[in-house]
């Protein structure tokens, strides 16, 4: 299969998650929705469910306003909107972590707004380090297991969790390699890059790993295209087709990302030895450099600068999801770190309801001129 054919395959899945869910349900599988971020998919996977990412969609927000105020993260709003409109019907449950205030509201509202799909909370600790942190995280996982057993009649087998952990570690590894390969191939568009990451939310990870390995092989056999202006993106989401089209129109090559829905989730592996549930709690403890993870030292800005430099990015584009306070808090230190490192930085605000991207186009076009 050619690179373009492989990329089209990723696009088909990324553009039609509903079809993908239908396919799994028709095959007799049970689907559990996983809201952002760091939902313990390994547990869901090992209990025999297909974890399917629920990160909302670029849709008009109508029903969710019955529960949410206007000025709150549109990712949360669109997840609830889709739930209330029945788009997720057929799912056995939804697991919603507690890593930001909006997510907590989503969970509480979901219980009443979408009673047909049971809400399973995953309560993470703010202090995730040491025994107290991992004990708290483990208790959260045990609650998820108990709730899923009750909601969907599945059984948790600790012995099988190790197998799921290996599958997820393998997927993490291949996605890190894909990210590195994409930095060497400017001919792969920003939209295609997004499809590769986004499709992973809607596929079993063992299946996605095979596709990603095939893509890696195809990219390795292909001469890189002509250089473009390399940039790094950071934020929660960067999947809007209209926004990605602007990157491609302007000749901007996303050579690295610190996007929560993309590379950020693949950085940390789980220890494959010992008690697997304990290892999973340790994995969460080891995660870092993220706006929704407590970090008194604010190491994330430094990580962004280092990665941008390592990939030869000439600037950093902060794709800020409107009303996402964790990301808004991180923006000033990111900007300062980039300025001190001599890296250009610009801010583009996005949300799930944007129809007109002219302001984003003007900002990115000007940013390209600054880089030139």
């Amino acid at each position, binding site marked *: 299969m050619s690179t373009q054919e492989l990329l089209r395959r990723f696009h088909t899945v990324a553009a039609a998650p509903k079809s993908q869910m239908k396919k799994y349900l028709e095959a007799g599988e049970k689907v559990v929705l996983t809201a952002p971020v760091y939902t313990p998919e390994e547990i869901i996977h090992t209990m025999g469910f297909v974890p399917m990412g629920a990160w909302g969609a670029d849709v008009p927000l109508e029903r969710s306003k019955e529960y949410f105020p206007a000025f709150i993260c549109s990712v949360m709003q669109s997840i609830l909107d889709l739930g209330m409109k029945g788009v997720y019907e057929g799912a056995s449950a939804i697991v919603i972590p507690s890593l930001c205030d909006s997510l907590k509201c989503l969970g509480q509202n979901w219980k009443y707004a979408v009673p047909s799909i049971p809400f399973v909370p995953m309560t993470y600790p703010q202090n995730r380090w040491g025994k107290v942190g991992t004990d708290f995280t483990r208790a959260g996982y045990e609650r998820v297991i108990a709730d899923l057993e009750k909601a969907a009649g599945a059984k948790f087998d600790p012995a099988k969790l190790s197998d799921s952990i290996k599958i997820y570690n393998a997927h993490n590894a291949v996605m890190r390699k894909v990210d590195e390969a994409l930095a060497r191939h400017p001919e792969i568009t920003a939209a295609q890059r997004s499809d590769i990451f986004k499709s992973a939310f809607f596929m079993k990870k063992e299946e996605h790993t095979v596709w990603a390995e095939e893509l890696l092989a195809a990219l390795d056999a292909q001469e890189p295209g002509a250089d473009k202006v390399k940039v790094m993106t950071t934020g929660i989401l960067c999947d809007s087709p209209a926004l990605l089209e602007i990157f491609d129109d302007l000749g901007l090559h996303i050579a690295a990302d610190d996007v929560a829905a993309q590379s950020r989730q693949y950085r940390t592996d789980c220890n494959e030895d010992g008690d697997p549930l304990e290892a999973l709690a340790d994995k969460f403890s080891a995660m870092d450099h993220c706006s929704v993870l407590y970090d008194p030292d604010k190491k994330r800005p430094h990580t962004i600068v280092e990665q941008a430099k390592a990939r030869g990015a000439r600037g950093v584009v902060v794709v800020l999801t409107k009303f996402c306070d964790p990301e808004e808090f991180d923006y000033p230190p990111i900007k300062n770190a980039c300025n001190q490192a001599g890296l250009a930085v610009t801010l583009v605000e996005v949300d799930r309801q944007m129809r007109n991207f002219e302001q984003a186009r003007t900002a990115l*076009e*000007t940013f390209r*001129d600054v880089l030139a």
Partner: protein
Amino acid sequence: MHFAGIDVGSTTSKCVLVQDGEMIGSALVDMGIGTAGPERAYSEALAAAGAVPEDVACCVATGYGRSSWKGADQTISELTAHGLGNHFLFPDARTVIDIGGQDAKVIELDANGRMANFVMNDKCAAGTGRFLEVMANVLRIPIGELEVLAAQAEQAAPISSTCTVFAESEVISQLASGTPVPDVVAGICASVASRVAALAKRVGIKEQVCMSGGVAQNGGVRRALEQTLGVPIAWSSQAQLAGALGAALHACHKSH
């Protein structure tokens, strides 16, 4: 050889022709994107320069409607255009404050006139020319009179800089409670200045500071901005043409 720059804005269309580094013709039409304004501005600028379309070696479009102008050889963002235009008008300028019909931008220039940094406002009418239009309508006065009335104020009335709709209600309340119109107008100018000053401080104020765009013509806003930022603000009677001028200069550079 002539070089044209056309700035298709949200409320106006501007065109400038340059030759040998000099402005030889310009036009400003009070019709923006989606109208015959750009065509008219182009024709009128050609007429002002005594030129015909065949004389134009290269045309660069800028502004909100830059992609819709079919006669352009190239497009550039309005920030790039205003940076170039203002460097031409004020070679020592390091900070350009551009307040247009529906947005506001602040551009930092380096010593060579190269754009070093920029910031744009959010999608909100507060702090833009549209805000002044809405308030002039509420007060039933021509927008050009805002400057004159603001100069007559004894004490600027407090007007919100957060939201145009809220500010409109506040203006009506101020009038209902008997606040003199000049004080209300001064408050309106201060509201725009407050919003734009906050934006400018995100980039950092480096002198010389100049103003660009249509709102630069409003002395009330200029003075309020000078007071808020604590620096003198240079402006040109051609401030509204600065984007088109920058586009024309870019066309000239591109062709050489």
